[in-house]
């Protein structure tokens, strides 16, 4: 077995353990919250007898550990259980929410990578000059603005004042692609901070790489500047950027609650928010499993890629 393959296998095993831990923690925390699904379902004027009846019907009166074991047994067969509040399978919730989230993620990443790399390389190339100072100060400033603040600002300016774009995705359901206008502002908000961190990482790595003897050597031997920058220097600068990119995609795929809520996009973040509000434990747990898997797989992918980009570093679990 090659070193890389056993590294991947070990990391996947570790990942399973991590996901189990996350699920246990999420279950314990949801149990610890005051109230449960029965209280949430009973409405505004809860009648204790009615709550008790709902509780019995939902089997919420059984001990917590029994419910957890049942759920875990179902998980082994690929069954994530059913929602407490609606009775629909949890899988439906996940599939419905995943569509919009995946769309937002894909759009964001497609714009993020070229923008981040291009601006980073540009800033490094003109280190200390106007282009670099402009890029560096703007990225720092934008990075300091939290998503919700930027979102509100963009909605106020472009949707409410100028009226160029719809403020939210209300009324479009999950079919967002048919109305590209509603995606512009959310994608901009999602892009803002990741672009900044990526630009800064690439810039730092590129400044090191451009000052290195191997870049001087390639230029000395008449290789064109752009070729040297993108093919000789950039791979070296990419290793840290790849890790950052994995964290960003992870963040995006796990549904950025603030952005989805602000723009009323029915993605995973919205599903999570609703499920927590209704104490819909199976849905929350289903989401925890999905988020856990996404995180483990993405980070593993990033480590493998980083190993390729920094072959000297070797692999360590």
């Amino acid at each position, binding site marked *: 077995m090659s*070193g890389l393959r056993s590294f991947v296998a070990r990391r996947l095993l570790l990942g399973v353990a991590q996901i189990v831990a996350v699920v246990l923690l999420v279950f314990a925390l949801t149990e610890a919250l005051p109230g449960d699904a029965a209280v949430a379902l009973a409405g505004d004027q809860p009648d204790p007898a009615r709550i008790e009846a709902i509780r019995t019907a939902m089997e919420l009166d059984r001990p917590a550990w029994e419910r957890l074991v049942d759920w875990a047994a179902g998980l082994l067969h690929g069954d994530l259980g059913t929602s407490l509040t609606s009775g629909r399978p949890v899988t439906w919730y996940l599939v419905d929410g995943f569509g919009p989230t995946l769309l937002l993620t894909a759009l964001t990443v497609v714009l993020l990578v070229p923008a981040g790399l291009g601006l980073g390389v540009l800033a490094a190339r003109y280190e200390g000059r106007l282009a670099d100072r402009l890029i560096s100060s703007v990225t720092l400033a934008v990075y300091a603005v939290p998503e919700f603040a930027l979102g509100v600002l963009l909605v106020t300016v472009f949707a409410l004042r100028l009226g160029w774009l719809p403020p939210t995705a209300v009324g479009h359901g999950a079919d967002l692609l048919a109305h590209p206008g509603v995606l512009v502002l959310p994608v901009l908000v999602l892009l803002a901070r990741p672009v900044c961190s990526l630009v800064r990482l690439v810039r730092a790595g590129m400044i090191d790489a451009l000052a290195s003897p191997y870049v001087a*050597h390639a230029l*000395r*031997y*008449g*290789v064109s500047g752009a070729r040297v920058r993108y093919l000789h220097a950039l791979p070296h600068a990419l*290793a840290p950027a790849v890790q950052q990119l994995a964290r960003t995609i992870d963040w995006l795929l796990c549904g950025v609650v603030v952005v989805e809520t602000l723009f009323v996009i029915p993605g995973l973040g919205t599903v999570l928010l609703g499920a927590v509000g209704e104490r819909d434990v199976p849905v929350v747990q289903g989401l925890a499993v999905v988020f856990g898997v996404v995180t483990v797989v993405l980070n593993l992918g990033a480590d493998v890629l980083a190993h390729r980009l920094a072959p*000297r570093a*070797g*692999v360590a679990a």
Partner: protein
Amino acid sequence: MSVNRESATGVAPVAEVRDLRVEIDGRAVVDGVSFRVLPGRVTALVGGSGSGKTTTGLALLGEYPRGARVGGEVRVATGGPVGYVPQHPASVLAPARRVDALLTDIAWMQVRHLPRGKRRAAARALVVRALEDAQLADAESMVRRYPHQLSGGQQQRVVLAQALLLGSRVVVADEPTTGQDGLTKRRVVGQLAALTTRGIAVVLLSHDLDVVRALADEVVVLREGRVVESGPAERLWEAPRHPWTRELLASEGGPTSFDVGVTRSRRPVVRVRGLVARHRAGSRSGPVVLRVPALDLHAGECLAVVGRSGSGKTTLARCLAGLHRDHDGDVLLDDTGLPRSLRQRNRAQLASVQYVFQDAHAAFDEHRPVVRQVARTAVRLRGADAEAARREALSVLARLGLPEDLVRRRPGGLSGGELQRAALARALLARPRVLLCDEITSGLDTVTRRDILGTLTELVAERGDLALVLITHDLATAALAHRVAVLDAGEVVEQGPARKVLADPRHPFTRSLVGTAEPAAST
């Protein structure tokens, strides 16, 4: 090897430097240097560090230090850029790309005239041919590797192949043999000589007089940016006119031996038993890289570990220091076994084995004053308080010839030799029982090397309880030790008293090593 030594008359120079002056911040680092580079000849620029030879060499490439004011004239014949082989060939190979990255780029520039479909194959053929011309064995598979997967010698050939592929008429080789063992040196000499047979002019920048002797047709001796003497090599060796040249030639002899009136105990400080070290590749245990059935280090004694690069010398030291965990067998300090990993060693065990690395610059944090980093050892490993540690650091540094105003600076303000002393002082502050010195003099010029070895000799004599391990490829250095262990491909092929082993080697490998350590001029 055959090096042209015909008369230079009538041959047009391929490069000429006339009255070159390079000033940085008003200080001249090169001042009035002139020489001519003839095709098929080796022109050596000789001098210690700070003599201006690297600045002059880079001027041939059209490169100058940032902010330098340049006067004079550098002319290079047309036809291909000037080739460059740096001291560390790995530094010019992009670490995240396969070794053929730059070669392929160069080749693509030469196949532009071909139809699109044929370019890839043609470029590939050019790359492979250039590598074969540079005598890299198994070129086809080598190009799929990353730079760190090649040995230093293979990296050097790849870099040479780049110059050959470019069609350079002049190749500048910067300290190509520094830090190399005798056999490697001879191979480098052979390679550079092979360049000259192709009519390529070689400009050799070196302080390694063995290699200069073996190769140079013309020698230019530099000191503090000025040419002190230049002329045909034979004339210069036979009758050096300038006193500095004479001093340079004289400094080749080593310092006094370690073996001067020191009472050596027969009690071993460290005993190595049944050591088998492997290289890890991922999680699997890789090939065995070192086998040491038994080795003792005695107090007050200097053991030289010699061998070619890649023979396992450094791995041995790393096993002792707890830096190489992947080994079987025991390393016993006095009578207790040392844990394999330094993370499991306690403070006293950590203090008792100290390591001084080859690259002193890399071994210091560039942002903190040297004295603070040196003093930290006593705080960390002996629990001394900060003020006492500082005083002790200053006194040890002063003892090693580094005054207080110097060590208050950051590492950038010290020369390589000075930093290496500081690194020694830092190790000594732990009051070690065993001091591992890994090629600590190999990057230094002959004069500095002699000083450092002199310091080490005194140290061992002064501190009777210290066992010194001197890892070196340089047999002249090894000859100073009490005992020598010879490593070849991870096996201890011979060990015993230095004089006996080096004067009367029994193992064929030791014999070959001793044979090549003689100045290569005899070839």
